[in-house]
């Protein structure tokens, strides 16, 4: 791991921004810089899954990454015109649930990992999921919910996606406090987790296989 990755893992904002500025100053390939920053972020995610880091650290790492990216991205645009995103993810907290925190963390992490994220917000009706899938054509749909009552709503939303003939076009992942304890087959989804980083990993694997 390079200096930049290490600084991200250490949650050392000054170190990260210093390394980025130095890289830009010495004409390092900006893609290399962003990938190194991502590597650091990925390591933080791994440490989170091992239980060595916590949600607060995960969020902090993403914040630092975003600041670093705001310095690097203009350089990327200067050097590479047609850079493509890794993939497109539509994400929202399901109808009847106004919890934003978990969904917000996942959306931030996905953006940091190079995904285009369409965030539908909270309390999202089933039909909005359906319409936005038609509009944006994502590869993955992520549904979030903290309440136990959100679980059947996730099932209903999947059904609405099915009825609209869109289920075959998207992978569906659900996440939230108790969601990881639910059988995926009960609500017709492809993956269920209570762990933000695990969710990101699963989405990355799906997209890579495509």
């Amino acid at each position, binding site marked *: 791991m390079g200096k930049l990755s290490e600084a991200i893992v250490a*949650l050392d*904002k000054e170190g990260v921004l210093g390394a980025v500025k130095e890289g830009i100053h010495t004409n390092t390939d900006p893609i290399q810089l962003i990938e190194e920053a991502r590597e650091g972020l990925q390591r933080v995610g791994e440490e989170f899954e091992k*239980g060595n*880091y*916590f*949600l*607060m*650290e995960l*969020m*902090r790492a993403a*914040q630092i990454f975003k600041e670093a990216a705001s310095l690097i991205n203009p350089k990327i645009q200067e050097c590479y015109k047609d850079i493509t995103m890794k993939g497109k993810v539509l994400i929202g907290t399901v109808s*009847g*649930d*106004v*919890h*934003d*925190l978990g969904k*917000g963390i996942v959306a931030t992490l996905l953006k940091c990992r190079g995904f285009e994220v369409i965030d539908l917000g909270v*309390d999202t009706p089933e039909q909005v999921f359906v319409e936005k899938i038609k509009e944006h054509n994502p590869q993955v749909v992520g549904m979030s919910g903290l*309440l*136990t*009552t959100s*679980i059947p709503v996730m099932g209903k939303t999947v059904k609405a996606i099915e009825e609209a003939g869109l289920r075959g076009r998207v992978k569906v992942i659900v996440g939230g406090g*108790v969601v990881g*304890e*639910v059988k995926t087959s009960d609500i017709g989804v492809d993956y269920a987790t209570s762990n933000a980083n695990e969710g990101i990993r699963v989405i990355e694997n799906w997209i890579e296989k495509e």
Partner: protein
Amino acid sequence: MKESLSRYERIEAAWNLEEADRVPVSPLNCYILAYQGGISIREMFHEPEKFIEAVVEARKKIGEGDQEDPNITTLDHLSLRPKSGWDQVTLDWRIWDQFPPEGNIPSFYEKCIIEDYDDVMERGFSTILFNKKIYKDVFERSLDDFLYYEFEYPEIYAKAWRKFVEEYEVPLIMGGRATIPFELVLYYRGFAQFVQDIFEQPDKVKDMCEFVLEHEIMNALKQAMIMGAGEVPGAEKIFFQAGVVGPPYVSPEVFEEFVWPTLKKGVDMIVKRGFKAHVHTDGDMTSVLPVFKDIAKGLPKGKVLLDFEKTDMKKAKEVLGDKVCIWGNVPASLLCYGTPTEVEEYCQKLIRDCAEGGGFILATECETPWNAKPENVRAMIDSAIKHGQY
């Protein structure tokens, strides 16, 4: 089976780390009482006598625990001054006429309320209380409406619960509720901003935690006095809520540095004023159990209880068993999606791990979901009777 102790005596024995006739059982029932009692959330929040009738009806369906939660949120949700900061900031008070709700039950708002710590600390707490960002309805209601909910309604509410406690001999889980400053400040700032504060202005976060502590505790004690502390069994207990204050949300280091100082100080304030502290934690506190060893340090025996959600209860018993009563932790998902047999097996294991020597109350992890299966909640209560005899 005839029971030799009253419910309150059984609960008190557990707080005092003594074995009673059996393990006490106390699901933390909130909206499930309204749902199973056949009333709407609106009725639950506006008509205390109707709510009590619903509680009695619900207990017939879900079983009769040794205590009941008076849902303190409903005591003062429409008043302003004595409201807990947690209610003020975090709950979306859409109140529905139907149950199951078409929308959500009251839920968390996650948004930035405090823009400047110094401003709040300089100008005082009213800058938070009278804030359109928190509670825009406040500015649309009449003075009469306020006065009613400020002064009359809490009395009516407390009277209804007092009658329930006396008639059915069921003590209250709590008389007042406070939120741990760290969590309160987190809600006031919003998670993303708060994370940045922890790393970039840690001293301000600590100052703000100190600043909100006294207001929050005094408010809870005031609630408990209205509910009849000293006269109504259980009303002397303050539910000191610590949701997003430990793993997996924050690290043990952050817990120790930012959460613990005002948590312990708050517990001391509650107990030194003659009340009892029911410390409610969410998340998995297993890694910080050693810190909790000092939660009752310097205080008389039987005044503090620790309530756990995802924590390893066996480990909690090992570490804290001789210090404080522990409470927990039948999973919400099991109560909604499991079977009575699975619930019974879970409870049996909990009792085996935690009950020896007293100091354990069989309870839900956080609250009983409103959509929990009645037969599962009943299985939990029956398990205490079947497997929890001393």
